[in-house]
């Protein structure tokens, strides 16, 4: 099975985000970048499918030079090949990214295209669907269970309060959700091997962004917590507040 996994490099989940002075972008100077965690699920699923079906896993990432370290992380997990679509920055418009990725994916004759359901930085969650549209392929996203039998795909996806089971044929685009699998660590052997795999560089065929970011704002500062009581008697009041005020349950 010839599998492509599209990955994005995102700031580490522990990053304290700082904005640029004009508040139009995130200040990248002190950021520790990682492989987008949802894309890790996609890489793991691709590796598992390769283990059962044979074939090849190709990692594709778009962005500036720094994204190579995310590509290496995916290679160290066990992927076979890598393509870096070089751009001077990560575009803010997912449609532009999908266009450039689709141009590359068209040339690869892939049976399956896997990627995270969203990136943890801009959280657009649009790429799986956009890729399906641009490639004319079925796209299933927020997938927590994937079965492939011949060219029959059965994907279980999370929807509000339930799971939906969708079937389609290969080739297809699948957006991975947490729960799909438990990503493996890069083994030391994988790290040594990843170093030797060449990353093919191509210019990203990016159309102009149609989205413009007006500004980023910091989330409001957390206000002080409230102690409702310290015994079981406080539980009803706590439940009421969580439901009515905090609106979390």
């Amino acid at each position, binding site marked *: 099975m010839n599998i492509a996994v599209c990955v994005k490099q995102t700031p580490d989940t522990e990053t304290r985000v700082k904005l640029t002075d004009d508040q139009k972008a995130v200040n990248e100077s002190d950021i520790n970048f*990682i492989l987008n965690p949802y894309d890790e699920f996609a890489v793991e699923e691709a590796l598992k499918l390769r283990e059962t079906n044979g074939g090849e896993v190709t990692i594709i990432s778009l962005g500036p030079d720094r994204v190579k*370290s995310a590509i*290496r992380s995916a290679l*160290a997990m066990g992927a076979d090949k890598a393509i870096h679509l070089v751009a001077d920055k990560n575009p803010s418009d997912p449609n532009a990214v999908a266009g450039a990725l689709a141009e590359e994916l068209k040339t690869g004759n892939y049976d399956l295209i896997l990627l995270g359901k969203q990136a943890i930085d801009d959280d657009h969650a649009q790429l799986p669907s956009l890729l399906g549209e641009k490639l004319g392929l079925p796209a299933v996203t927020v997938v927590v269970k994937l079965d492939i039998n011949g060219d029959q795909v059965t994907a279980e996806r999370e929807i509000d309060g339930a799971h939906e089971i969708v079937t389609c044929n290969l080739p297809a685009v699948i957006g991975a959700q947490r729960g799909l699998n438990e990503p493996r*660590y890069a*083994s*030391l052997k994988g*790290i*040594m091997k990843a*170093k030797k795999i060449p990353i093919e560089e191509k210019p990203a065929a990016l159309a102009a962004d149609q989205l413009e970011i007006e500004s980023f704002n910091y989330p409001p500062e957390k206000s002080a917590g409230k102690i409702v009581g310290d015994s079981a008697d406080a539980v009803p009041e706590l439940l009421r507040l969580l439901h009515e005020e905090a609106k979390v349950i």
Partner: protein
Amino acid sequence: MIHFSEEHEMVRNMVRDFAQKEMAPIAIEADEQERFPKETFQKMAELILLGLPFDPKYGGAGMDIIAYTITLEELARVCAATALSYSAHVSLAASPIDMFGTEAQKQKYLVPLAKGEKIGSFGLTEPGSGSDAGSMKTTAVPEGDHYVLNGSKMWITNAEVADIFVVAAVTDKSKGTRGISNFIIERDFAGFEVGKKEKKLGMRASPTSMLHFTDCRVPKENLLGEENQGFKQFLKVLNGGRVGIAAQALGIAKESLKRAMLYAQEREQFGKKIGEFQGIQFKLADMATKIKASELMIYDAAEKKQAGLPYIHEAGMAKLFATEAATDIANQAIQIHGGVGYTKEFEVERFWRDAKLLEIGEGTSEVQRIVIYRELLKEIDRL
């Protein structure tokens, strides 16, 4: 200046991730219950961490000393006891077999150690001989195609769970330190027994026990390298081990600083964050400075070892400085936390208990000073 390669950074990220996910959730409990986390070792084996520096043809990963040092640092940040058992396995048990063993010994013992199918341990210290290792009493007397071992070993890391032991014994008493040899012992050899487990201040998830040899017959093919070369062999092993012990101290120190820094930005007294008080700031600044110095010394020694240059002086200094700094830094981390720092939940108290051992094990601070002075004496004309 330390320049880590991309590969080294990947090792650091992987081990950090591994330690956070697999070790952090059980670290407090393993310490309290004095339980060796065997499951962690099994998971490490899958990632080839237990064979990190050894040739892939023996089941290792073929990585360098820098990668090994980084690994110890990251493991110790989360659970120093696990790091200690890991270093005893890799650097004290497997590495002498790698350095001095015959091809047959490597196939039989190094391969299962590197693959993590077996756990390793190293026996040098005795009830009556610690820093003065040359005064050991355990004897190995040749008898036909065997040696017969008699005596006891003390403070042996991993003994409770180990399958393969590298053990030193006197083969020719008249020759002093030139009459000591090392042997590879299998756990089920008749006449060999692992004694009671010690109750310790720290490093409690890393088991420490005595070894007893009573007419234990060891096949001659289990002599490590040549007869009477044992003293030289274990000095070489211990020199390498010092960098690893220092790296564990660095890991503890870095995590102590991180915890103390974060707490200082959070805890409020007298209407402001305690980190806004100069008294706390000065403590944190001193902690960070000692960490920087430790890090430079450790990776300088590791780089020299990797390059095949003399590094005994550097390794001794790195161990002396980094381990004493770690105990001090963990102590200050408790102090900055105040009352909660004294509770197990906040972990800094464990960091301090664990750090203390590093000033004692694999050569006390005093022995390091002796080593450093001896090297100084050699360089006297160049000072």
